């Protein structure tokens, strides 16, 4: 692509991104430095246009950030989100890797059907899936009833409204996100490599750890990020499945914004969350997302 067509395409695409991706983040950064007031909008302006006075006065308020770092509630919410998201990511990968491996091992004529089956939940509403999962885990839900019927437990397990409930909800919501990239990276591995390992005397389990897993590592890392990042900011799962004492940043933000209507504080919390999430992505970005694009 050359000349005018190229310039126009770049400018159009960039205008879109600037308006709907870049601008919102700049606005959030700006409002995070404002003060909360009662009114519409519920925050002060960054630039104060005095009575005809030029230039306008700049009013920067670092108080929101001071509050975030000073308030144990926020720190706990950040740490709690990171902890629960990390556990959920580990569990999701522990399920996704063997499952995807089994998919690549299935007879070739089943594989398209298995793939559609793995993608299908991804296309159904996450809210509905969380709702269905609540039904399964409830005190009188099928899981508790089966465990009681088998005599494994006497009284229903309280899973909902606990951390275990949240982790299971996160895992269930984001499992398809983990499954697809792992499968895609496993299926790309030449089966002859496994055969070559066997030919040289390597048993199947060992060959999985020595050959398959290292080659699939980029895909597994990508899958981990795809689960971890949305899980950190997740709102629906902690809101519907967590207890009242569960602190996750997504829920805290939501409350701050809709209930307390403290938009500047919510903005500051958002800025911190973005910084927290973007840093690992920037480190891994080249490896995960931009592979092969450089040779344009």
């Amino acid at each position, binding site marked *: 692509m050359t000349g005018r067509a190229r310039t126009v395409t770049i400018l159009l695409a960039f205008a879109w991104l600037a308006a709907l991706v870049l601008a919102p983040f700049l606005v959030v950064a700006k409002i995070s430095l404002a003060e909360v007031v009662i009114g519409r909008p519920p925050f002060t302006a960054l630039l104060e246009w005095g009575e005809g006075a030029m230039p306008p006065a700049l009013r920067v308020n670092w108080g929101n950030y001071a509050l975030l770092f000073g308030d144990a509630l926020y720190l706990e919410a950040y740490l709690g989100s990171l902890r629960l998201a990390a556990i959920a990511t580990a569990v999701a990968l522990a399920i996704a890797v063997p499952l995807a491996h089994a998919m690549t091992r299935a007879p070739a004529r089943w594989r398209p059907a298995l793939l559609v089956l793995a993608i299908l939940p991804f296309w159904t509403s996450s809210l509905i899936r969380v709702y269905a999962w609540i039904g399964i885990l409830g005190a009188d839900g099928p899981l508790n009833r089966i465990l009681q019927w088998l005599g494994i437990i006497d009284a229903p397990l309280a899973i909902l409204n606990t951390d275990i409930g949240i982790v299971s909800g996160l895992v269930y919501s984001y499992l398809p996100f983990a499954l697809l990239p792992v499968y895609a990276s496993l299926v790309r591995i*030449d089966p*002859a*490599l496994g*055969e*070559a*390992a*066997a*030919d*040289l*005397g*390597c*048993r*199947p389990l*060992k060959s999985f750890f*020595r*050959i398959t897993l*290292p*080659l699939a590592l980029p895909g597994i890392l990508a899958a981990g990020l795809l689960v971890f990042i949305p899980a950190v900011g997740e709102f629906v799962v902690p809101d519907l499945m967590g207890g009242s004492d569960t602190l996750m940043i997504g829920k805290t933000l939501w409350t701050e914004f809709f209930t307390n209507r403290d938009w500047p504080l919510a903005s500051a919390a958002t800025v911190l969350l973005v910084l927290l999430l973007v840093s690992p992505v920037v480190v891994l970005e080249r490896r995960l997302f931009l592979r092969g694009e450089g040779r344009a």
Partner: protein
Amino acid sequence: MTFLSLRNVAKSFGGVTAVDGVSLDIERGEIFALLGPSGCGKTTLLRLVAGFEQPDAGAIRLDGQDIAPLPPYRRPVNMMFQSYALFPHMTVAGNIAFGLKQDRLPAGEIGARVAEVLKLVRLEGLEARKPHQLSGGQRQRVALARALAKRPKLVLLDEPLAALDRKLREETQFELLAIHRRLSLTFVIVTHDQEEAMTLAQRMAVMDRGRVAQVGAPRDVYEHPASRFVAGFIGTANLFEGTVAGQDNGLVRVQSPAAGCAVAVRHAGTLSAGTAACVAVRPEKLRLGDAGCDNGFAATVEEVAFRGEATLCRARLATGHALTLSLPNRARAGGDAPRAGAAVRIGFAADDAVLLTS
């Protein structure tokens, strides 16, 4: 002494029969070539021996032992893959050491063995490279080194030289021969290149649609092909189709419409008159001029192609049948070759042709 023995081995995939009742005996220490057109089942046969496929029928014995129940990682056989299958995340040394580590050899021993095979395939100095940092020819030699490192009783090579250019391929063929001689291993080598098979192998099997068409030393197979398929696949053959007209004194006369007369050929067996048969003659066995020959034809030269060591010549008989001749270029002046359009006599000896009935 038979080292690897296949008895009526068969394998099909769904409806496709890839290997159809193959029986072969491979001797200890020989280089044995499997030769055949694409899709005839060569790779499948190797994979059956390596253990990646289970035969539907038949037995595979290695050194007297039935290896059917052994999984690939327990078979004392190593394979060099058609695609090389080098582990992309390991260095050259890591790839070569992989098999040795599976045997839990001490680290010092592994290092020594890796260095030894690297020297053998002349890749010293490249041990720290990853496969993607190597040229095609170097990768191919790493694959070979990896298959040799465990000193297996039997090495299977699936089209080992297919990815190389002609010159490198010829050099590597002689290297392979040298390596084989030094290590005194047994090689089974798959190829669809008949010259490669003849250069490397002491014996070869020509395969056709899952079956063995002929087994023998390259020279035997070339000079005494057992069927029209083998005669046509190994080298070029001029065929005179016809029926047996008579037989005396070890000479069979085949009445051939293509030749426009009876063709004489030496043949040991007895054939009744009227049997359908075919006389096959190699291009280099045809001569210009039929003085002293058992068979002679008048022909017109149509095309002449200079090939370096020989000149290929296409001539048409009065019957319309075309023959291919290969005439050695003995003199630099090139006086041996006829010109296009020249009327010539073409002859060959009855001893230089073969009679084919299948």
